[in-house]
C-alpha cells in the first residue's frame, strides 16, 4: 500500500505510515488525497482562514497519482498542495516530469511537510527513508543549476523538485520546478516551500513499483497505447506540442492580448514559427505523447499558455524573445501564467495613468522586451517595483482602488490560459467555479469548441448539452462532467492529454482508467464508482473553499469579461451577460447537488467528516 511521510522541519520529527485503504478507494491518490490531508491539517491548526501561508502550520503536500510510476499511459504526474499565498485559499498545482515516479520508487507516494527549518536545506528520499541535508551552496541558485548540483552530489538517477530565487524570496507566484520546465506552478506553492527553507526534494528512485497484475497491466498499456497513437490530436501534440493551439484562438479572436483589451495578435507566435526553435520533442514518465519541446535557446517550451501570456498579453511579438522569457521564468521558478497576467495588469495601469514612474521606476510600454525581462528578474529577487509585483494579486490593496477593475483573476488567481472566454460561455463558467481560481485545467470543456453532432456530445459527456458555443443554458452539466473527469485524472496521476474530453472524444475514458486501476492497484472499480471518486474530490475542494470563507460571490469573472465586448474578429461584440451568468451558476450548483449558495448537502459534509476517522496515521496529537 502507499506510504505517507509526515515531516516536521522545525522539530526534525519524521513519521511514515501506510495510507488507509478506505481513503485510497474514495480519494484514489494525487490531488484527491492531497485535498483530504490539506483540509484535515488546516482544520487541526485552527481556523483555516487564520493560517499564515508562510507559517509553520501551513502543510506543503507532495502527492503522486495512484498510477504514477507504473507503465499506465502518461502516468507521470503529482500534485503540490497547501494554503496558497497568492489566493489565501485552496492552493493546488499539478506537474509532470520524472520526479513523482522516482518519489514512489523511493518508497513514498506522499509527503506532508510542516514546520520551518532554521537553515536552508533539502530532503532526500531513498529506500523508504527521509533525510534532511544542509543546503550549502544551493540557496540562490536557479532551478536548473540546483538540479545539476543535486545530481552531482547524489549521483545519476537522482530526480529533484526544486525552487528558484522566486520561491526563496517568497514571491507569491513562485513555482516548484522539476527538469527544465515541468512546473507545479499555480498558486505560489514554491513560495511556501521557500518559507520552510526547503530548497529541494531529492528522490533517489529504486526498483520498479510492484503492481497487482503485471500481465493485465501490460495488456492494458499495449491496447491503450495503440488507441492513443491512432489519435490525430495525440500525433499533432507529439510533433509540435501545445503551441498549435495558438493559431485557431488567434484567428477566432480569442487570444488575451494586452491584458484583454484586444483579442488577437501576431502570427509570429504560431506553432510553425515556434517549431523553428525546437530541436527535439521530449516525454515524461511512461508518456506516449511526447509534447515537450527542447528549445535551441537552452530550455524547454514554450507551451501555448506561455506563448499567449508572455507574448500576446504583453504585446511581445518576436518569437525568440518569447522563448527567452519562457526560459527565464522557468530558471527563476516563476509561474508563467501569473507572471504574464500580473505584468499585463501593471502595463494597463500605466497606460491608463493609474500608476506612474514614482512607483514603477520607469515606463511600462507594451512590447518592451528588455523592460519585461528586467522586471521578471526584479520580481524573482523582490527588487524595486518587482517587489510589489511579487505580491501578485495581493498587491491590489497597495494600488489605486480602480486597479482591481483591470485584473484578470478569479478568487485571486490570475487566469491560467491565454483564451479569452467571453465567447465560449461554458469556458467562462468553468473558470468561475474552478476550485483553485481562474484555471482551465479543472474543467475546461474543450470539445464545446468543436462542431460535434448532439449524439456525439451525449456519448462523450453522458449528459445532454447545448451545442451552441455562445449559449448559456444547457452548459452546466457538461462542465460538471469535466470537473469529475479531470479530478480523476489528477488523482490517478494521468496527463490530461490522454483523457477523453480534453481536445478529443477518442481518448481514455472511465472504462479504460478503471481497467488500469484494477490491474495496477488491485482495486476493482466500476466506471460510475470512478466518476463518484472524482465528484467526491470536487465536493471536498468546495468544502475547503467554504471553510476559507469563499461564497457564491467568489464564483465570478473579471469585471472586463462582463462589461467590455470583445473588440474584433469572429468573437466581436461578445461579453458575459451578468443575469444569464447567474442563471448558469444556478444550473451548475444544481448539477453538482449543491444548494443555491453553493454549499454541500449536510449528508455529504458528514460523509467527508467521517472519512477522516479512517486516517490512523495522523494520530490524536495532530
Amino acid at each position, binding site marked *: 500500500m502507499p506510504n505517507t511521510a509526515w515531516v516536521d522541519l522545525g522539530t526534525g520529527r519524521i513519521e511514515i505510515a501506510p495510507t488507509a485503504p478506505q481513503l485510497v478507494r474514495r480519494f484514489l491518490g494525487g490531488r484527491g488525497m492531497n485535498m483530504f490531508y490539506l483540509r484535515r491539517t488546516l482544520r487541526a491548526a485552527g481556523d483555516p482562514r487564520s493560517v499564515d501561508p508562510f507559517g509553520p502550520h501551513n502543510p506543503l503536500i507532495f502527492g503522486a497519482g495512484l498510477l504514477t510510476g507504473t507503465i499506465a499511459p502518461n502516468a507521470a504526474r503529482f500534485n503540490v498542495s497547501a494554503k496558497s499565498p497568492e489566493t489565501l485559499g485552496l492552493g493546488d498545482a499539478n506537474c509532470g516530469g520524472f520526479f513523482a515516479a522516482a518519489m514512489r520508487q523511493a518508497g513514498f507516494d506522499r509527503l506532508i511537510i510542516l514546520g520551518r527549518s532554521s537553515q536552508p536545506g533539502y530532503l532526500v528520499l531513498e529506500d523508504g527513508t527521509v533525510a534532511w541535508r544542509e543546503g550549502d551552496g544551493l540557496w540562490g541558485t536557479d532551478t536548473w543549476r540546483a538540479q545539476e548540483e543535486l545530481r552531482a552530489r547524489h549521483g545519476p538517477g537522482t530526480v529533484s523538485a526544486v525552487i528558484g530565487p522566486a520561491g526563496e524570496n517568497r514571491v507569491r507566484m513562485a513555482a516548484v520546478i522539476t527538469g527544465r520546465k515541468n512546473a507545479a506552478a499555480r498558486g505560489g506553492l514554491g513560495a511556501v516551500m521557500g518559507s520552510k527553507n526547503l530548497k529541494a526534494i531529492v528522490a533517489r528512485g529504486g526498483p520498479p513499483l510492484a503492481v497487482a497484475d503485471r500481465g493485465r497491466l501490460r495488456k492494458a498499456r499495449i491496447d491503450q497505447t495503440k488507441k492513443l497513437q491512432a489519435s490525430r*490530436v495525440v500525433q499533432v501534440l507529439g510533433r509540435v506540442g501545445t503551441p*498549435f493551439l495558438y493559431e*485557431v484562438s488567434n484567428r477566432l479572436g480569442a487570444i488575451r492580448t494586452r491584458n484583454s483589451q484586444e483579442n488577437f495578435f501576431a502570427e509570429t507566435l504560431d506553432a510553425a514559427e515556434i517549431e523553428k526553435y525546437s530541436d527535439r520533442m521530449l516525454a515524461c514518465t511512461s508518456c506516449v505523447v511526447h509534447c515537450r519541446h527542447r528549445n535551441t535557446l537552452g530550455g524547454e517550451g514554450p507551451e501555448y499558455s506561455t506563448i499567449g501570456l508572455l507574448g500576446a498579453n504583453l504585446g511581445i511579438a518576436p518569437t525568440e524573445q518569447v522563448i527567452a522569457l519562457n526560459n527565464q521564468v522557468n530558471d527563476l521558478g516563476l509561474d508563467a501564467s501569473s507572471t504574464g497576467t500580473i505584468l499585463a495588469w501593471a502595463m494597463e495601469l500605466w497606460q491608463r495613468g493609474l500608476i506612474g514612474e514614482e512607483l514603477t521606476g520607469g515606463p511600462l510600454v507594451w512590447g518592451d522586451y528588455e523592460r519585461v525581462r528586467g522586471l521578471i528578474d526584479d520580481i524573482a529577487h523582490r527588487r524595486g517595483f518587482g517587489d510589489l509585483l511579487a505580491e501578485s494579486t495581493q498587491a491590489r490593496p497597495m494600488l489605486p482602488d480602480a486597479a482591481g477593475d483591470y485584473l484578470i483573476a478569479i478568487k485571486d488567481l490570475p487566469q491560467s490560459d491565454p483564451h479569452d472566454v467571453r465567447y465560449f460561455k461554458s469556458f467562462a463558467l468553468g473558470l468561475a467555479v474552478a476550485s483553485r481560481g481562474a484555471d482551465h485545467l479543472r474543467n475546461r470543456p474543450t470539445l464545446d469548441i468543436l462542431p460535434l453532432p448532439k449524439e456525439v456530445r451525449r456519448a462523450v459527456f453522458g449528459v445532454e448539452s447545448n451545442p451552441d458555443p455562445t449559449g448559456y443554458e444547457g452548459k452546466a452539466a457538461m462542465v460538471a462532467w469535466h470537473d469529475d473527469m479531470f479530478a480523476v485524472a489528477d488523482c490517478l496521476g494521468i496527463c490530461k492529454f490522454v483523457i477523453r474530453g480534453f481536445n478529443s472524444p477518442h481518448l481514455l475514458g472511465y472504462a479504460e482508467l478503471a481497467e488500469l486501476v484494477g490491474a495496477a492497484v488491485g482495486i476493482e472499480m466500476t466506471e460510475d464508482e470512478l466518476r463518484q471518486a472524482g465528484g467526491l474530490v470536487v465536493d471536498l475542494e468546495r468544502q475547503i473553499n467554504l471553510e476559507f470563507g469563499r461564497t457564491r460571490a467568489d464564483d465570478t469573472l473579471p469585471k472586463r469579461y462582463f462589461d467590455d465586448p470583445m473588440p474584433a474578429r469572429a468573437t466581436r461584440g461578445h461579453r458575459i451577460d451578468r443575469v444569464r451568468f447567474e442563471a448558469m451558476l444556478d444550473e451548475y450548483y444544481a448539477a453538482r447537488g449543491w444548494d443555491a449558495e453553493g454549499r454541500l448537502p449536510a449528508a455529504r459534509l458528514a460523509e467527508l467528516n467521517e472519512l477522516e476517522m479512517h486516517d490512523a496515521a495522523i494520530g490524536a496529537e495532530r
Partner: protein
Amino acid sequence: MKITVHLGEPLWRAVQQRYVELELPAGALVANALEALTRRYPTLVREMEDQEVPWVCFVGDDQAERASPLSEGATLHLLWPLSGG
C-alpha cells in the same frame, strides 16, 4: 478570381506549405475552394475527412461554412478548433 488558402496546423504539413493560392470562377463558394484544393493536393483528402477534430473555416475574420461566398483577394483559413493546453 484569386484567393489565398491558409492551412493551419496540422493541415499544412500534407502540402508542406501554409499558404496556397487558388484561381476560382467568380461567385465561387467555400465548397468550391475546398474541391479545388483537394484536387490539386490529394494528400489533403485524408486530413480533411478526419472526424476526430472536424476543422473549421474562416473567410477573413469571420467564421464561414461551405456555402459561404468568397470574393476576389479573400483569405480562407482552415483550422483545427482546439483550445486545451
